[in-house]
């Protein structure tokens, strides 16, 4: 009994350390995504991007963060104070919660104990992500409504309908993947790809739909109708200042990071890389290499997010809805049908 309790405490400490690491990593990556975004924007527009604060402008995120902390906090006079503060907090909380089910690596062996680099190994990982992502809209809605500003309200309503619409196509595109893998646990999905081909080979159409939906769910350009500077003056965070604005901006980058990790895990093999099992190295080294591989994939996806942002102009709202309902959902259904048919055909043989 005592042994049992002692073991549980160690397990708890493991998990707490892991959660702290993942949170710190998400925040760090989000910080440097802002830097990366501005660098990529600069390069694409034949400029240098930030290059004053520190070498290559690497201290720019710290300077920006410091600035946001010291700016004046403004709460509009006629706003709902509680909801106004709840909005950005919720956006940040939800963004940080998603990382719990993503397998960041295989197994580390420390002192004879095996530590899985996944915070929560639940058998409904994909559904959990859906649940959390569907809550992400509350941050936008509450913030936009509580600001008591018509532009914010419009952005909130746009955001809500956009996210709900694209969640459908996203779910349908994932169902095809789940039919293939037969598991909702992200770790199982990654392990299957480790011993076979990556899922992108089986599900190119599904991946494309998922990618477009991921852009829409993160409200990134070309689907950033919730911000739409040219028509809504910045949208749902129009009335926000100081670190509350920072939270909203940060949440967007964390969402990008997590959806990159998710796409890498679901379609591009996660922490596995070709020749992973034939290296002949110790488990820990292979695990760390695997984490490196996952990180490289994530950075590639983050670059894609930025690259698209500085290439494609924003959709009009009716075009957005048309794409979601008239193109992506039928395509996803079609993809599901084809996948199901092929699986049946293969089982018949």
């Amino acid at each position, binding site marked *: 009994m005592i042994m049992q309790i002692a073991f549980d405490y160690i397990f708890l400490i493991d998990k707490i350390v892991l959660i702290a690491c993942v949170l710190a990593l998400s925040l760090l990556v989000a910080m440097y995504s802002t830097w990366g975004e501005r660098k990529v924007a600069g390069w694409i*527009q*034949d400029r240098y991007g930030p290059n004053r604060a520190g070498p290559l402008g690497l201290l720019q995120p710290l300077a920006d963060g410091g600035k946001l902390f010291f700016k004046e906090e403004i709460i509009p006079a006629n706003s709902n104070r509680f909801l106004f503060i709840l909005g950005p907090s919720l956006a940040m909380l939800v963004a940080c919660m998603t990382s719990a089910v993503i397998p960041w690596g295989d197994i580390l062996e420390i002192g004879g104990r095996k530590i899985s680099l996944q915070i929560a190994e639940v058998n409904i990982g994909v559904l959990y992500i859906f649940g959390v992502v569907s809550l992400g809209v509350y941050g936008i809605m509450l913030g936009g409504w509580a600001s008591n500003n018509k532009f914010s309200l419009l952005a909130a309503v746009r955001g809500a309908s956009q996210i709900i619409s694209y969640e459908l196509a996203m779910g349908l595109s994932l169902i095809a993947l789940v039919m293939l893998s037969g598991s909702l646990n992200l770790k199982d999905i990654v392990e299957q790809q480790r011993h076979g081909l990556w899922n992108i080979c089986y599900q190119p159409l599904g991946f494309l739909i998922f990618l477009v939906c991921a852009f829409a769910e993160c409200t990134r350009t070309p689907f950033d109708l919730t911000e739409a500077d040219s028509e809504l003056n910045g949208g749902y965070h129009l009335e926000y200042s100081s670190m509350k604005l920072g939270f909203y901006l940060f949440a967007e980058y964390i969402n990008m990071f997590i959806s990159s990790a998710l796409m890498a895990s679901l379609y591009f093999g996660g922490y596995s890389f070709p020749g992973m099992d034939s290296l002949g190295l110790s488990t820990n080294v292979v695990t760390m290499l695997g984490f490196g591989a996952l990180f490289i994939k994530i950075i590639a996806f983050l670059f894609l997010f930025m690259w698209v942002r500085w290439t494609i102009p924003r959709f009009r709202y009716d075009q957005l809805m048309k794409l979601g309902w008239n193109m992506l959902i039928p395509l996803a259904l079609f993809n599901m049908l084809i996948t199901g048919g092929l699986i049946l055909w293969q089982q018949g043989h």
Partner: protein
Amino acid sequence: MQALTDRSKMVDRKPMTFVERLYLWNIIKGMRITFAHLFRKKVTVKFPEQKRAFSPVFRGLHILNRDEEGRERCTACGLCAVSCPAEAITMEGAERKPGEEHLYREEKYAAKYEINMLRCIFCGFCEEACPKDAIYLTETFAPANYKREGFIYGKDDLLIPDPKTGK
């Protein structure tokens, strides 16, 4: 209909082909263009370290000239003020006293000479109007200032140092 210029182009109103309607291919084409721009030479001039060279006809801040012996050339004739389209130049003439021959070249000189750099448009008409070669536009520009008064340049700002004494 006859085209007015050879650069005019008819708008293409053909219905979109299937590939164009897919939209995906056009996105990829656009992405390729932006990707190529990542490696282009950057056009930015990193200002404080790097300075863009002025063109040979650049017109900047004014100076008031002296002759070889260090005497002021300006005679306060007012032609520069008359020619100035922005009315930026004001001056007050004064008569040279005996014993001031080493200071002023001719019997009349400018006791006060002011150019408002906020009004000045740096057209260089004053330079062209001057019959005495007294005013020139240089290759510098007026530095920033916190107050409007700081942009009204007087004689002590404009006069070049005496070539003999160096002051």
